[in-house]
């Protein structure tokens, strides 16, 4: 991945703040690298299973700085509560230009841990979008592909993203991860191992269905992983 700053007009600091802005960017870039490195080490030690597979896929997609894998990571203020976003665009020849944008705001991505969690979430979105495109490419016949490999609904796409967030939090040793003012808990280390899958599902479902335009679809995750 290639990390860069991407100021926008609404939030761009005055010229006199360039030094402060550069300092924040450098700090966030360091935090991101450290967070992803830490997550990778934790994932390496995880036992095999869907959690490890998902996190590995996301981390592989993100890559490491300077690996020229084509994935761009930008730091830029995002509108609303968004901490991250993914853009996948294709040029005229069909070549993709994937970009993940992370908000450097200290409330949204103020630590290496939150950066790693949010980057992993976006990495899963990128993996899923690429998977859908490549399935179509390999099948060469969209109707057949539709029949064999269902597209992800808007609910399922976000459900999988938050699954990754929860599993990343778990791997990083985060005590709890919540949304919606704390009412939608998607990870809590106090949960008994036997209850974790159910409670993660409950928390994510509650959060995603609260987002307008994301009605629940079942199975929540229609893909094997």
């Amino acid at each position, binding site marked *: 991945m290639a990390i860069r700053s991407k100021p*926008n*007009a*609404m939030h761009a600091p005055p010229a006199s703040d360039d030094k402060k802005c550069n300092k924040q960017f450098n700090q966030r870039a360091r935090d991101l690298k450290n967070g992803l490195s830490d997550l990778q080490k934790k994932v390496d030690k995880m036992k095999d299973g869907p959690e490890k597979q998902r996190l590995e896929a996301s981390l*592989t*997609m993100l890559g490491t700085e300077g690996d020229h*894998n*084509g*994935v761009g990571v930008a730091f830029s203020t*995002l*509108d*609303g*509560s*968004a*901490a*991250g*976003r*993914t*853009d996948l665009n294709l040029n005229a*020849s*069909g*070549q*993709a230009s994937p970009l993940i944008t992370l908000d450097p*705001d200290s*409330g*949204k991505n*103020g*630590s290496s841990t939150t950066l790693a*969690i949010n980057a992993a979430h976006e990495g899963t979105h*990128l993996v899923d979008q*690429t998977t859908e*495109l*490549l399935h*179509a*490419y390999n099948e060469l016949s*969209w*109707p057949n*592909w539709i029949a064999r490999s269902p*597209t*992800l609904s*808007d609910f399922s*796409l*976000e459900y999988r*993203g938050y699954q990754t967030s929860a599993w990343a*939090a778990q791997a990083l040793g985060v005590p*709890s*991860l*919540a*949304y*919606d*003012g*704390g*009412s939608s*808990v998607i990870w*809590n280390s*106090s949960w008994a191992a036997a209850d974790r899958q159910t409670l993660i599902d*409950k*928390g994510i479902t509650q959060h995603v269905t609260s*987002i*307008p*335009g994301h009605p629940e679809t079942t199975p929540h995750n229609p893909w094997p992983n």
Partner: protein
Amino acid sequence: MNKPAWTLFLSLIGSATAVAQNQPDAACILSTAKNGQTITAHGKAVQQPHDLGFRVVGCDDVVILTYAGDQDTDVPADRLRRDEHLKRFQKFTSAVYKSTTKDICEQCMQYGDVEATLTGKLEIATIPPDTTKDQMGFLHDASGKIVGTSGFGHPTRMFKYRLVILSASDVKARKLPKPRVANP
């Protein structure tokens, strides 16, 4: 990744399924507005996971918001009226509570029920004849080749409307309490 998947050419993809877009209400300003038109509308901010939305009074569709001058718009920054109203709207819709090191609360807003009257350039996504839109917002021609995109929002382009904000007024919001992590 040594050989990124991005280098693949995707022009052989087969035909796509169309994604239905909501039909606008008769009383909704969006139903009569034209693409590129400057409109003024009152509504309520709607938080999306990766975008800021806006539900105009009388309309069902969520409109994605962006600001004049932002990189992916063609509206110059000098058309953005950066007054106190705009600053309040930006603050109310983006301020989140900082997490503690122990418990992380993401997207936990400091303000809710954010209402405003916004003036901006309305952009309406269309699906050209002889093309279909897939779940990710890519447009395909009859042969299946990807010929463009349609829609707004991330990671998929699921929204039909986007408003490029020029100014805000009548901004109000409700202060929300600090998050408390529930114990399910």
